[in-house]
């Protein structure tokens, strides 16, 4: 992954920075310029709580080459208490045990790397709460 593309996303990837629309209250993660719900352009900066619940999920048995050594792995859509939804791998659990409603915590992890010479790309993954 080219460094600038990765670096640009640091606020949301590293710190879960998000915004909440001042007009309609909808959270956007990552931050947007225009609210997708009401087209408002005034936002309040918020940080997402590093916890949430699973909305839906899958377990990947066939993965892109970069993730091939991690299969099978679970990926879920997680909703935070702020009402923001994000996609994340769900780790440190049996992938088959991931179900809707599962409470999770979001932890800082290495997400991907390009071989042994490229940059390391970090972000958040979910783990079952209390794991």
């Amino acid at each position, binding site marked *: 992954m080219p460094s600038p593309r990765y670096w640009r996303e640091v606020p949301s990837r590293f710190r879960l920075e998000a915004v909440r629309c001042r007009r309609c209250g909808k959270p956007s993660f990552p931050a947007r310029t225009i609210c997708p719900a009401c087209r408002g352009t005034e936002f309040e900066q918020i940080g997402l709580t590093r916890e949430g619940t699973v909305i839906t999920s899958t377990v990947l048995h066939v993965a892109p080459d970069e993730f091939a050594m991690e299969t099978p792995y679970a990926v879920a859509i997680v909703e935070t208490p702020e009402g923001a939804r994000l996609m994340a791998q769900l780790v440190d659990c049996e992938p088959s045990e991931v179900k809707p409603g599962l409470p999770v915590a979001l932890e*800082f992890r290495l997400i991907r790397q390009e071989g042994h010479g490229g940059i390391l790309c970090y972000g958040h993954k979910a783990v079952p709460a209390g*794991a």
Partner: protein
Amino acid sequence: MAGIVGYGAYIPRKRIKAEEIARQWGRDAASIEKGLLLREKSVPGLDEDTITISVAAGRAALDRAGIDPQRVGALYIGSESHPYAVKPSGTIVVEALGVGPRVHVADFEFACKAGTEAMFVALGLVESGRVEYAMGIGADTSQGAPNDALEFSASAGGAAYLFGREALLADVLETYSYTTDTPDFWRREGEFYPRHGGRFTGEPAYFKHVLAASRGILEKTGLKPKDFRYAVFHMPNGKFPLNAGKTLGFTPQQMETGWLVPTMGNTYSGSSPTGLAAVLDVAAPDDLILITSFGSGAASDSFVLRATALLPERRGRARTVRSMLDHPTRYLTYGQYASYREKIILND
């Protein structure tokens, strides 16, 4: 007086048992468990490294301190497994923790001692008044060569310490360092696994430095082993710290709380700092604590700390070391372990 205002640890949730490693190499598991007092060790996932461990431990330290991360003026990470050969771990950790950009950051390396080295420097900067708060982290995802004795111990984990001058959870009463050039253990640039001098790592290396630093700090403070409630010595295996403590006059009761190695393994730069975190998880106000690290090459740093009345009410803000150590999620086969530790040759 300066001291610890926040602390935190992180231990990956996967484990491999010593008997599984012994089975792989046709070794006698019982003799390893009895001889080195190692039963199992933590194993990092493919997504865990010194940086992610540092972020988890550092976040817990900030949570316990309850301060604005922007007030942290320095952050140092000691590790012998920084993910990049060139490019700092610390920059990623400060961005993730919301520290900086007005912060001084450096990565340290001193074999297993780099963690207390980071703590030592952070403490000094706070004491000098140069910065208001400073964080020192020791973390590692160390590798032992396959079928080497180190493979039974080299594990993953770390701890972070935030130093300040107010609202202390533990006062730092004294420090003492003892350093000589002793090539007992090393890894050259580009080498995947470290090499070591076998039994040379014992008497002239570990014991010489641990005993000298510990005796030095006792002499400097005028304290006796019986004055301490807890003592933590670097844990390359189960046996060395107990023998060192015994030689110094400490009892097993003083050492057992911070003696995590039988189920955690040796977390290298994170070893004695994680042991100290386990002590802070249970220490009562006014308890005296001795911690002595050891890093091959070789040196030891000793700290004498005294728990404050604030410690018990703050420790509940983050997970305890025991809660992480005693609840692994998965025991790995050697094959899975080899895969997680990237010991299997793959094309790029």
